[in-house]
């Protein structure tokens, strides 16, 4: 059923059950998002997408709040801009954003200045966890968007190898007593890697190539195919650089996978090359 809402003074039609963000995007408008993913339950923790809703004391996360008839929404007020800008600055001041182009673009769009908190502002300080053959975890880049937890758990894999532990600024994604992945419940599907927005989770091959200065998206193209391992028919996107497969993803809008794969589809491609560039 269609319902009428008002956004920045403009009348819009939205479908019942839609989120504010979906209504905005359908109307060609937008809000910055980091923890949002179309195939995961909205957790509304990054707070970058907040909007003003008439009658609400605090700002409202557009990614999770559903539209209501007659809802009056503002995305362009000083309050909204200030909250979004500071949220983005706070994030960018606390983590390594070198492999987080989305976050960097949002910060730039809001003219954020993460350096204004001072060079002595405490940052997330975590060593690189390079403990298996398939992917690395660099929590100094983690913005705690919860996407990996969701993909590992109830939204895709039902493995529950990951959770948030600790609290406040010391909260971290955890395998349980900081166990290496091989000792955790991880099944190496890599669905957490696929949804990570900041490169905190990264395939080992990509990580090694970046370290060596060899990772170059401008030299990469994507070949679409179907996974050869079983009869499910998962769509694969083979990212190819210099005639070598360097990464495998699946389209988020694909009916079969919804972007998720298993360990074979996502990581089992190195047999194609006689001398894989991993280990």
């Amino acid at each position: 059923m269609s319902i009428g809402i008002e956004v920045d003074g403009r009348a819009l039609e939205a479908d019942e059950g839609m989120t504010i963000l979906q209504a905005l995007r359908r109307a060609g408008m937008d809000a910055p998002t980091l923890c949002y993913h179309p195939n995961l339950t909205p957790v509304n923790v990054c707070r970058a997408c907040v909007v003003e809703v008439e009658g609400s004391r605090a700002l409202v996360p557009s990614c999770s709040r559903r539209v209501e008839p007659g809802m009056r929404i503002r995305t362009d007020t000083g309050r909204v801009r200030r909250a979004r800008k500071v949220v983005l600055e706070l994030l960018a001041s606390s983590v390594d954003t070198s492999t987080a182009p989305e976050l960097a673009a949002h910060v730039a769009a809001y003219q954020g200045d993460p350096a204004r908190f001072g060079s002595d502002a405490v940052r997330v300080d975590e060593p690189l966890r390079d403990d298996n053959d398939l992917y690395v975890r660099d929590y100094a880049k983690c913005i705690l968007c919860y996407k990996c937890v969701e993909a590992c758990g109830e939204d895709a894999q039902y493995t529950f190898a990951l959770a948030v532990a600790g609290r406040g600024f010391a909260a971290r994604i955890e395998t349980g007593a900081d166990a290496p992945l091989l000792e955790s419940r991880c099944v190496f599907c890599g669905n957490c890697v696929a949804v990570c927005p900041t490169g905190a989770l990264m395939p080992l091959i990509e990580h090694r190539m970046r370290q060596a200065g060899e990772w170059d998206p401008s030299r990469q193209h994507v070949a679409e195919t179907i996974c050869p391992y079983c009869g499910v028919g998962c769509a694969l996107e083979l990212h190819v650089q210099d005639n070598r497969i360097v990464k495998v993803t699946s389209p988020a809008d694909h009916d079969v996978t919804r972007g998720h794969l298993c360990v074979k589809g996502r990581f089992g491609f190195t047999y194609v090359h006689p001398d894989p560039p991993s280990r």
Partner: protein
Amino acid sequence: MPEIRRLLARAGVADPESLEAYRSLRGYEALTRATERGPAWVLSELEASGLLGRGGAAFPAGRKWRAVAEAGGRRRVVCNADESEPGTFKDRVLMEEDPFAVVEAMTIAGLTVGAEDGLIYVRGEYRLAATRLRQAIDQAERAGLLGADAAGTGRAFRIRVFRGAGAYICGEETALFNSVEGRRGEPRNKPPFPTQAGLFGDPTLVNNVETLCNVPVVLREGASGFRRYGTERSTGTKLWCVSGHVERPGLYEVPFGTTLGELLELAGGVWRGRRLQAVLCGGAAGTFLGPDRLDLPLTFEDLRTAGGTVGSGAVIVLDETASLWDVVLRVARFFQEESCGQCVPCRVGTQRQLEIVGRLASGRARPEDPQLLADIGAAMTDASICGLGQTAAGAVLSALTLQPLVPPSNSRGKGAQRAARGRPGESV
């Protein structure tokens, strides 16, 4: 204005472990009236009483009760006794000294809104309160006031006591539900509100201990009798937890509308005849009020107009010798330690706020610091998921408007310097 003993009528007078003692001082009169006259009467009296929630959010209690009463399916009643706001000890006194009042009020709530399950979430450190509540529940069960046929109504109502594990955030009602359900103590997004989907997904009535303890008073005295004290919009009496630099710190029950100065007089005034520097009103999530605010009537509406809050009812008094910014630093550290870490504005904002307050407290403020605090405060207040982040900047920002009587550079400063350097999660 005189001290009243209405909520505290039995505290320190009746044996808190004796149902008979409770009954001899008008205990269970309200439940009797409630069962005689029925839920519709209870709801209308409660609405007419104007009782507002005492947990900090000041939500009309009657409206909340009605919402749960009108919800379908299985319903629950939860007493939020996770009193963790710094400087707050009112619920502790009520539970330790008058536990049957909590039990009676919850029984009324259960029978009124149609719930069979009641749960009291007691702060983990409140061992005596939990013990006394359990004893009261046991006695009430043996007397037929709780159980399969609660108070002879033919309807079941039971209460269990659940002890928290020491996290401030679990006093936030939806984080409290998660805690009881065995999940991580993180607040949920609202809507849905607890009255729609609360504990285990059922419509849930959540009330603070002090709010509940007002209910038997309302039903005994009637709505108009209840309104004999207080103002038009802040009805009844209020428990204030007065601590800090006063002659007689403690718990004071006064009508709403009593001024801050009158409350401090009751507590014997600023100790040793010293000058008042500031009052932290409402707890760490409250605001500082300067000595020019002594005439302020303590009501929900007057405090809101003054940019403050009733909050948890904590009134922490600082005399002229206190280092204001050391106190602010403790408040900032408290929020940095107690933030659950779920949403960005609170997780990173409380950390940055602590770093900046650390600079101010050790006399190393930078010119941009007040602006940074204002920006962080605005983002936390506007964009945080729950009340913790939304109030984490109130005390800090209000302190900026005060004139410290002890210059920051003279402060003891060690803690401040460590905080400014501080590592995440480090206790300083």
